[in-house]
C-alpha cells in the first residue's frame, strides 16, 4: 500500500514536471493587425506555416477594426498587455519610436546594408542610421485602371502611355446627356481618393519638380512645376469641356465600379474589390509618363515591428517571426491572398509576377515609386483637397491656392519636427 502510494506520488510529480517543462519550452507570442478579411486570411496561412517550421513557438493573432486600432495598441503596450509583433502604417513609425513602444530590429539578423540591397528602395524610410525599426511584407503602388468595354465602344486600342494621351483618351470616353450633364466620365477625379498621391509624387515630379526637400521636412511644390502639375490636374474638370467632375457618383472608385468611368487611378489594394465585380471588364496599366517620358509613382505600406513588450525568449521568437514575415515565401503568399505587392524585387520582379497582367503594372511602378513621409496623412491630404476647392468653388488662381497649401503644410511639418 505504502509503495503504491509512493509510486502514485512519484508518477504525479513526474507528470506535472513534464507538464511544466513542456509549457516552459513553448513560447507564445502575440501578433496584432487591423481587421481586413484578406489580410487576416493571409496572416493565418503565414502563422500556420511558421508554427510548422518552429514547433516550439505559438503565434496568436488579434485584430481590431481600423478605426480603433491605433488607440488599442497605444493603450495596451505600456500596460504590458499588447502584442509582441505589431503591424503599423509606415507614417506612424516616428510616433511609435518616440513613445518607445517599439524596438529596433537586431542588426545581426537584419543588417541594414543587406536590406538596402534586397528590398525596394522605399523601405529605407524605416531606417535610422544603420538599423531598421520595421519592415513590410508587402507594399502598395498606384496604377491606371481602365474599362475595356468603354475603350472598345470608343474605338480606342489601349491605355494611354503619356499624360497628353491620357487627356485625349479621357475626352473620347466622356459621355453627356442632352442638357450637357456628364453621364460617363473619361477619368475619375478627387483629391480625397488616391489623386493626392498621384499629384504629389507623380505629376509634380513629372513636370520636373520635387515635392519635398530635406527628407520630407521642407515643402517644395510651390514652384513652376507645382503650378504646371496643378493646372494639368484642374484642367481635367474645369476647362470648357471637362472630362471629369469631382465627386461624380459620390466616390471615384464607385463610378469606376459602376462602369461610369473610363479610367481610374487607384492602389493595388483595389484589385480585390474590383475582381468580384460582375459585368465589369477592366485592365491595368502603368501610370502615364510625363512629357519627356518621366515616370513616377507613389508607394505606401504597412510594416511589422517588434514592440518593447517583447523580452527574453519572447523577443527571440518575435525576431524569428519577423524573419519569416519578411521572407520571399511570405511575400508571395501575401500577393496571392491580399493582392498587395512583394516588398523585395527578388519576389516582385520574377518573370511571372512582373508580367502578370494585373499585378505587373503595379510591381513595375515600384521601381520608380516614392514614399511620402507624412506627419499626419489625413491632414496633409486635406490641404490638397482644399487647394482644389478654392480654385473650383471660389475661383482662386491656381498659383495662389497652391501657395496657401504649401505654407499651411510647412507650418504643420515645422510644428511636428520641432517637438
Amino acid at each position, binding site marked *: 500500500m505504502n509503495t503504491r502510494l509512493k509510486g502514485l506520488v512519484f508518477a504525479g510529480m513526474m507528470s506535472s514536471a513534464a507538464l511544466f517543462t513542456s509549457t516552459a519550452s513553448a513560447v507564445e507570442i502575440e501578433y496584432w493587425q487591423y481587421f481586413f478579411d484578406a489580410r487576416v486570411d493571409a496572416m493565418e496561412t503565414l502563422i500556420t506555416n511558421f508554427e510548422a517550421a518552429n514547433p516550439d513557438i505559438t503565434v496568436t493573432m488579434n485584430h481590431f477594426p481600423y478605426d480603433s486600432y491605433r488607440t488599442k495598441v497605444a493603450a495596451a503596450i505600456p500596460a504590458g498587455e499588447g502584442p509582441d509583433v505589431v503591424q503599423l502604417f509606415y507614417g506612424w513609425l516616428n510616433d511609435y519610436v518616440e*513613445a518607445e513602444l517599439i524596438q529596433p530590429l537586431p542588426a545581426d539578423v537584419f543588417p541594414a546594408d543587406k536590406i538596402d540591397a534586397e528590398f525596394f528602395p522605399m523601405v529605407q524610410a524605416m531606417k535610422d542610421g544603420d538599423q531598421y525599426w520595421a519592415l513590410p511584407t508587402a507594399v502598395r503602388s498606384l496604377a491606371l485602371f481602365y474599362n475595356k468595354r468603354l475603350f472598345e465602344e470608343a474605338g480606342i486600342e489601349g491605355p494611354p502611355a503619356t499624360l497628353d494621351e491620357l487627356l485625349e483618351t479621357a475626352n473620347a470616353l466622356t459621355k453627356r446627356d442632352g*442638357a450637357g450633364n456628364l453621364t460617363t466620365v473619361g477619368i475619375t477625379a478627387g483629391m480625397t481618393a488616391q489623386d493626392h498621391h498621384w499629384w504629389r509624387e507623380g505629376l509634380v515630379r513629372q513636370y520636373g519638380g520635387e515635392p519635398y526637400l530635406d527628407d520630407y521636412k521642407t515643402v517644395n511644390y510651390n514652384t513652376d512645376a507645382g503650378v504646371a502639375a496643378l493646372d494639368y490636374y484642374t484642367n481635367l474638370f474645369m476647362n470648357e469641356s471637362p472630362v471629369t467632375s469631382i465627386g461624380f*457618383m*459620390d466616390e471615384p472608385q464607385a463610378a469606376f465600379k459602376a462602369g461610369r468611368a473610363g479610367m481610374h487611378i487607384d492602389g493595388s489594394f483595389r484589385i480585390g474589390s474590383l475582381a468580384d465585380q460582375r459585368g465589369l471588364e477592366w485592365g491595368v496599366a502603368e501610370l502615364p509618363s510625363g512629357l519627356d517620358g518621366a515616370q513616377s509613382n507613389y508607394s505606401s505600406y504597412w510594416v511589422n515591428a517588434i514592440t518593447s513588450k517583447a523580452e527574453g525568449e519572447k523577443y527571440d521568437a518575435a525576431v524569428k517571426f519577423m524573419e519569416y514575415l519578411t521572407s520571399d515565401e511570405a511575400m508571395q503568399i501575401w500577393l496571392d491572398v491580399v493582392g498587395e505587392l512583394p516588398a523585395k524585387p527578388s519576389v516582385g520582379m520574377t518573370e511571372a509576377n512582373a508580367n502578370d497582367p494585373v499585378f505587373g503594372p503595379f510591381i513595375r511602378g515600384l521601381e520608380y515609386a516614392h514614399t511620402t513621409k507624412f506627419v499626419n496623412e489625413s491632414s496633409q491630404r486635406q490641404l490638397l483637397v482644399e487647394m482644389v476647392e478654392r480654385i473650383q468653388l471660389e475661383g482662386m488662381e491656381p498659383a495662389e491656392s497652391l501657395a496657401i497649401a504649401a505654407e499651411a503644410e510647412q507650418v504643420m511639418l515645422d510644428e511636428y519636427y520641432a517637438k
Partner: protein
Amino acid sequence: MYRNLTIRQKQIVWAWAFLAIPVLFYSIIRFYPTGNAILISFQNWNLLGSRTWAGLDNYEKLWNDAVFWKVFQNTFLYLLLGTPISLVLSFIIAYHLDKLRFMHGFLRMLYFLPFMTSAVAMAWVWRWFYQDVPIGLFNNILAGFGIPQISFLNSTTNALPAVLAPAVWAGLGFQVIIFMAGIRSIPTSYYEAAKIDGVGWFTVLTQITLPLLRPTIVFIVVFSSIGFLRIFDHVFNMTTNNPGGPLNATKPLVLMIYDTAFNGFDMGYAAAQTVVLFTILLIVSLIQLRLLRST
C-alpha cells in the same frame, strides 16, 4: 454613537447612505472623465507617449485657429437655423394633426418614423439624393425638366442647409409628439369659453394655445438647441470623403474635435475644444432654464 442622534439626523444619515451609491457612480462615470478632459486640455498628448504640460498653449492655438472660428460660426448657424425651423414646422404639423380625425394614428406614426430610424442610414440616403446627375434623385428630377443641376453638397453656400435639412426632418417626429401632448393638455373649457364669446381662430391661437404651451415650447427649444449644438452624425456621414467640407463649410465643433483627436492624435488640442463646447452648452442651457423658471 448612532443611538445618540436625533430622528432628523438619523434620517439624514440614511438618506446619504442610500445616495452614496448613485453619487459615487455618478462621480466616477461623469465627473472624473470631465475633470480629466479639462486636465488634458492643458497638456500635450498624442495617445502614445507621456503627457507633457502645455499651459495655455492649446487655448492660444484655438484662439488663433481660423478653422475654429469658421467651425464656431457653423455650429451657431446649425443652432440658429435648425431650432426655429424645426420648432415652427413641428408646431404647424402638430396643430393640424391634432384637429385631424381621419387616419390620425397612421399619420402620427409616419411623422414619428424618421425619429426612430438610424441617423447614419438616413444621412447616407440623403447623401445619394443630393448627388449629381446619373444617381442623384433631386438633380435627376431637375434634369428631367431641363433645369441645370444644383450643387448641393459640393458648394460652400448650399452644403450647410443641405446637411441641416435631414437633421431637422429626422427630429421633427419627436417634437410633433411632444407638441401634441402639450396641446391635448390644455383644458377644453378654455376653448369652449372662447367659442361662446365668438373669438376668431387667430385670437384663440395667440391668447390661449401658445401661452399655455409655453413650458412645452421651452422644453423643445432647450432639447433641440443642445441637439443642434452637438450635431455630428449627419454631417460626418454626408461628407465622409471630405469631413466637414467643402472648405469647412459644414464642419461643426464636434466633428472638429473628432478630427483633431482621432486623425491628428492631438488629444490636448481636442480636449481644449471639448472644454469650449462644454462651456457653450452650459451657458445656452442655463439661459434657457432661467427662462423656464420665470413661468
